[in-house]
């Protein structure tokens, strides 16, 4: 090797430095298995397509083809055919993490696929966000340390798609969503998948965080600062095209929740610039607030928090954005306090909770509600809950279409 080569090699050595993380054998094997399964699926699908083509050609020849587009992701009732379910998370400082999520068939409850982080050593943090019902986003967190001193190594956001057969066809790293030294929570996605929003923390403890909006096509990022420390924007959501960022704030005086919105979510700045869309006068704990795709209706899910109440109550209501009035109660149910450890009549009700999510059309809702002794799990059809699997869910379960 010549002197020039030796010198260049030294420079290359310095430049390459040390890799920040390792590639594990387990991850390689998992990906290889997935690739093999995918290849088998593609081969089977190709055979099925060939058969179908022959059938269609035959049907076309006999005049039986209707020409109606197929809707493989919807069941006969128009309900999304598959849902993503995340098990109860383990707390890790601010951020909740779960190793595994599954895809289930809405009608049968059968598990059709497993969702796991493609990043070696990482766990899914926070809730998986649905875009158009086929495309989903998840945050993967690598953390170190333990107990009271968890440390953040970094997060990455991955996109995955659920096929018409309920399998996960691939994971791809989202442009601009490699976040060294940051943890992520409260992920939300625009319906067209063009943008995602999330809370981003530099530490798992004692960090007020900022809201990041990432353009998934260009990788451009915008950062939004919270207005008042301690009063955080909750339940982030994005408009269908990702242009507007929406969030809930509890104002406290008077007892009112506010759904606020910033336009040009890709610009960044202060959340104080947000415009109030609708006031929701309620002392209840609102866990869910989404605008309908046309922006005229706000659906809220709340659980009661009335002092001296013997039982709790959960409700899902639709509010007119124009008038601020409740125009429809989609679901209401009492939650008995009996059986809750430590509960006594006259104290603050503890543990009444609900998790709500909707399909992209905003017509169908998944509701999980109850108290820590048992959560009812199902989707709403004409004010009644059609059970999902498991019908009695552990606290902390999350599902989305």
């Amino acid at each position, binding site marked *: *090797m010549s002197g*020039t*080569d030796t*010198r*260049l*090699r030294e*420079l*290359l*050595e*310095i*430049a*390459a*430095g*040390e*890799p*920040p*993380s*390792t*590639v*594990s*054998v387990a*991850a*390689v*094997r998992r*990906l*290889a298995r997935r*690739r*093999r399964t995918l290849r088998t699926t593609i081969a089977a699908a190709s055979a099925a397509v060939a058969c179908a083509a022959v059938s269609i050609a035959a049907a076309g020849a006999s005049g039986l083809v209707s020409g109606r587009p197929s809707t493989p992701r919807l069941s006969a009732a128009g309900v999304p055919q598959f849902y993503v379910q995340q098990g109860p998370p383990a707390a890790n400082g601010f951020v909740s993490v779960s190793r595994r999520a599954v895809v289930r068939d809405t009608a049968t409850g059968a598990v059709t696929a497993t969702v796991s982080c493609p990043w*070696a050593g990482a766990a899914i943090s926070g809730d998986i966000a649905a875009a158009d019902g086929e495309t989903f986003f998840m945050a993967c967190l690598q953390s170190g340390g333990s107990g009271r001193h968890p440390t953040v190594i970094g997060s*990455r956001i991955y996109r995955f798609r659920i096929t018409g057969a309920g399998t996960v066809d691939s994971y*791809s*790293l*989202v*442009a*601009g*969503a*490699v*976040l*060294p*030294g*940051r943890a992520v929570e409260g992920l939300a996605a625009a319906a067209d998948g063009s943008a995602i929003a999330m809370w981003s923390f*530099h530490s798992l403890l004692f960090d007020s965080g900022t809201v990041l909006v990432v353009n998934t096509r*260009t*990788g451009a*990022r915008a950062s939004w600062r919270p207005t008042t420390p301690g009063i955080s924007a909750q339940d982030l959501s994005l408009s269908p095209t990702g242009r507007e960022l929406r969030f809930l704030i509890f104002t406290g005086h008077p007892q009112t929740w506010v759904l606020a919105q910033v336009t040009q979510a890709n610009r960044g700045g202060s959340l104080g610039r947000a415009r109030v869309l609708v006031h929701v006068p309620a002392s209840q704990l609102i866990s869910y607030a989404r605008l309908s795709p046309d922006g005229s209706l706000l659906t809220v899910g709340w659980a009661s928090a009335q002092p001296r109440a013997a039982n709790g109550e959960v409700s899902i209501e639709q509010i007119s954005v124009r008038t601020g009035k409740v125009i429809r109660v989609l679901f209401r149910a009492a939650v008995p306090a009996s059986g809750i450890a430590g509960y006594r009549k006259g104290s603050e009700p503890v543990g009444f909770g609900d998790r709500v999510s909707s399909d992209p059309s905003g017509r169908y809702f998944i509701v999980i509600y109850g108290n820590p002794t048992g959560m009812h799990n199902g989707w709403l059809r004409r004010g009644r809950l059609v059970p999902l699997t498991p019908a009695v869910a552990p606290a902390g379960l999350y599902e989305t279409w």
Partner: protein
Amino acid sequence: MIKDAEAEGFAEFVASRERALQRTAWLLTGDWALAQDLVQTALVRSWPRWERIRQRDSPEIYVRKVMVNTWLTWTRRKWRGEQACADVPDDAAPGDLATETAVRVAVREALATLTQRQRAVLVMRVFDDMSEADVGQALNIAVGTVKSTAAHALAKLRQDPLLAGLMDKESL
């Protein structure tokens, strides 16, 4: 089906060589996230054939060949699918950060001026210390082409004022 001993051998190979592979991958891609994905993809592609690969003189050359060819395929795509952002890690780095950063930036910029083949040849020949024959075999080109490509690549790097300055220095 891969037998246990082969699986173990593969695990040992990954454990011992993945960091070196990642460093080569960084020199090719200029981005750690992409480098990690590249190494992972090359290993995923190599694993089903490990029984045959391990019987060769050097399985590493085969894996590097897969890695470089995978990278060349990625660079040929008009749409890369993902663009990793240029994030500077927030945590403190050990060593002389200023010098390392200056070298890293200079090397990355200089390598970016090379063609894909020049870059692959240079990294394999100079950084991985592979013989001209092995580089030729990995990239499916003649030894003479390896020599001329490496010479052209070096000449081009010499024209980069920042890198040329660093190369002329005795030490950093």
